[in-house]
């Protein structure tokens, strides 16, 4: 039981940190670039450690993100739960890929998330194609291998099997 609580605290702390990194204001030079750390975190846990993160948890984090970013309530929640489900469903295939292929998969998942976001915007009447968003996704995918390594190290350290 103690083990479970320990692991839960680990996951939610990591997710809280990624949430804060997502909404943290960047210097003006990076204007418009917004890296989806939360999505990266959700993908990581859905692929690598299923017992710690499920669809519902991803949804809850997305809801928190919506509140923080002041957007439509449920938009990020929907995107993150879909991303979580997809990466969970194909985890056995993805897990054995070499790093660069996982990177491509991440790019695909994040773009799919962005596509959903565009659909929702279309429904709510503000279709807007922001170039920086797609640029941010590419940057996020490039960051992915480092992100994965860091989280794996942390996980080996703190998560009890």
């Amino acid at each position, binding site marked *: 039981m103690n083990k479970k609580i320990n692991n839960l605290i680990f996951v939610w702390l990591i997710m*809280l940190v990624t*949430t*804060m*990194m*997502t*909404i*943290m*204001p*960047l210097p003006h030079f990076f*204007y*418009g670039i*917004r890296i989806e750390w939360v999505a990266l975190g959700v993908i990581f846990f859905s692929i*690598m*450690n*299923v*017992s710690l993160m*499920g*669809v*519902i948890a991803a*949804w809850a984090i997305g*809801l*928190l993100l919506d*509140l*923080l*970013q*002041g*957007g*439509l*309530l*449920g*938009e990020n*929640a*929907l995107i993150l*739960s*879909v991303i979580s*489900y997809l990466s*969970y*469903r194909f985890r056995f295939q993805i*897990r054995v890929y070499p790093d660069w292929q996982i990177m491509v998969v991440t790019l695909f998942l994040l773009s799919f998330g962005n596509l959903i976001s565009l659909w*929702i915007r279309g429904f*709510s009447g*503000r279709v*807007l194609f*922001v170039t*920086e*968003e797609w640029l941010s996704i590419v940057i996020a995918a490039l960051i992915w291998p480092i992100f994965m390594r860091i989280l*794996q190290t942390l996980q080996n350290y703190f998560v009890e*099997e």
Partner: protein
Amino acid sequence: MAINPGQRIHRYEKNYSSYRLIFVIILSCVLMYQDTQDGYSKTIRTYLSVFAYPITYAANLPKNTIEGLRLRLSERASIIDESKKLKEENILLKSQLQEIYKLDAENRRLYELLGSYPDKKRNFLFADIIATSSVPDRRQIIINKGSTDGVNIGDAVADPNGIIGHVIRDQVFSSEILLISDLEHAIPIEITSTGERAIAYGSGDMNRLEIRSISLNSKVQKGDVVITSGLGGRYPEGFPVGEISRVKKIEGENLLAIDLSPFANLDVINEIWVIQTEVSKDE
């Protein structure tokens, strides 16, 4: 990499994640629909936001600390310079203020002659910005005053130069403000030189609003000052909004395409105040 034995799933083990996904998608759609329709999610949102406040505060701490440090470490010379400039400005403003008493009295006398009274009394509440939206197409800021300080949804917000937006959501200890440059924002305005009333729409660009309902034979010129008209009741009357930066005639169109550049510097907002409108008691 070793796979955690706990997460190995047996072939015939039941897996509910698809059902969960469907459930969650439906729930999100209901929430989003409610949010666009101003349904009950507004109340839910207000109470949930209380949890968001510490996270917003913590996430913006590095930026705010760096800005605070920069202010504290700025050179003495520049501070003296600034203080001198502020003193001059203060004297200028005070000398202008002397006229106000006279104008105020005159105004009141005229109102009495007309038999009507200005019905609203205004309060100003100073606030600080704790966060700006990181999403590129959303022009929103969060300030550190909420409904516990008396901020209401719909209150107008201004900076020293002019109107910047209005309160759209209450977060109990803080509130969210939609800037006038947001794509979803529209503000009723009046062009001072011609007296024409119109609505200025946000363009998503920080330095440009659009007016699309002024007819071709209008005498609007570049540089005309635009103030709030007070129609619609959301924004108080007579506050400066901006000046007209471009007037363009489009072939085959009945209306002018007018651009407006706001007085308030929406990129770098520092001090702001919330304009609270109170209905006077004798009404």
